[in-house]
């Protein structure tokens, strides 16, 4: 069994999709949460000077989606054929696009007026457009009563849960127009391994 060390900060953020897939797989790992003061010491050791990083028997992988996909594959939860894998990847990328739009106004916009404007555009226009696509794509997989890809959970679900956590925190009824997506959130939360992780994971602001 390889040794896994996941480096990130005290938060869900960009590391949480990997943590969810590690939980679904029941794979033990070192969940390293760095203090901000420790970061200048660790940054030069990371391949692109960023976190999260997953260290697998000494090899360091960076980039949150690459990490989550690798971990998903370790337990056969990344899609069973090349096409299924591409579908899982495309869904995950769509969710990451939305997470990036949120990060843009939460973390990278300092002007308060522009911040509010971007947030409004996101919730009023961008997000509804894409939730519409996501609902349709879920339904396209056998009516949408299961998962995004094939008949099992993949890293697509991990990214979707992280996105829904964030958008529901802002707007609790945001998924009501999308019943299949809303029902899927509950299925992910009760998935073996993930259910236990959600109950015990540190409660953090991000």
């Amino acid at each position, binding site marked *: 069994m390889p040794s896994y060390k996941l480096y990130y900060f005290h938060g869900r953020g960009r590391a949480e999709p990997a943590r969810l897939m590690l939980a679904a797989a029941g794979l033990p790992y070192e969940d390293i949460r760095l203090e901000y003061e420790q970061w200048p010491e660790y940054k030069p050791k990371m391949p692109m000077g960023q976190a999260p990083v997953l260290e697998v028997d000494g090899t360091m992988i960076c*980039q949150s989606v690459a990490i989550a996909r690798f971990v998903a594959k370790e337990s056969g939860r990344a899609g069973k054929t090349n096409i299924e894998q591409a579908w899982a990847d495309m869904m995950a990328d769509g969710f990451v696009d939305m997470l990036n739009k949120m990060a843009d106004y939460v973390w990278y916009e300092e002007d308060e007026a522009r911040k509010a404007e971007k947030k409004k555009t996101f919730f009023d226009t961008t997000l509804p457009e894409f939730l519409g696509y996501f609902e349709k*794509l879920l339904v396209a997989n056998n009516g949408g009563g299961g998962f995004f890809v094939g008949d099992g959970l993949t890293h697509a679900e991990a990214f979707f849960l992280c996105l829904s956590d964030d958008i529901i925190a802002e707007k609790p009824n945001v998924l009501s127009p999308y019943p299949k997506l809303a029902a899927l959130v509950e299925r992910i939360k009760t998935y073996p391994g993930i259910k236990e992780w959600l109950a015990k994971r540190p409660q953090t602001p991000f």
Partner: protein
Amino acid sequence: MPSYKLTYFKHWGRAGVLRLLFAAGGIEFEDVRIERDQWPELKPKTPMGQIPILEVDGTIICQTKAIGRFIAKEAGLAGKTPLEAAQADMIVDGLSDLQVKIVDFFIEKDAKKKQEKIKEFAEKTFPVFLDTYEKLASSSGHFVGDALTWADVDFFSLMFFLKDHLPNDPLKGYVNLSKVRDNVTSNPGIAAWMEKETSH
């Protein structure tokens, strides 16, 4: 043999790398290039209202990196082990991060702000990126293991896209990165494709 139909606009943009990957793998594909005014009619038929899209025996996949990874696997260019595949993925993701910065100055309409953004990119963002990627590339000119992967092809593709927007040869002085570029351009499928693409 599956049928592949790639749809995008005419320019290099986001599909350039995908066409290169088909070429590198010697895989036949229908290279559909639409005009701007055809887009509104196509948009609702796409999974997420965006292109490029790849249709594989009737299934439509979107998201450039998802498509790229799929073609890379079909072409045997996605790494030999799961860890190698992850290494290729991380290189591609880092290139994608850089592309976000490029698109940002590209679409900037205010001329003064555009110049400022290009200056910041050329003097700070891009050199930092190149320094990082030089260390990630091997002296034999590969980002992953010792063979060509789609990470190498994606790097070349982005450098090719950038060449019209930056003054000099950006890889001058970067020994490993220049070798990556050489390895990519000497791949027979890619060499033939580039000859065709750049000869008009």
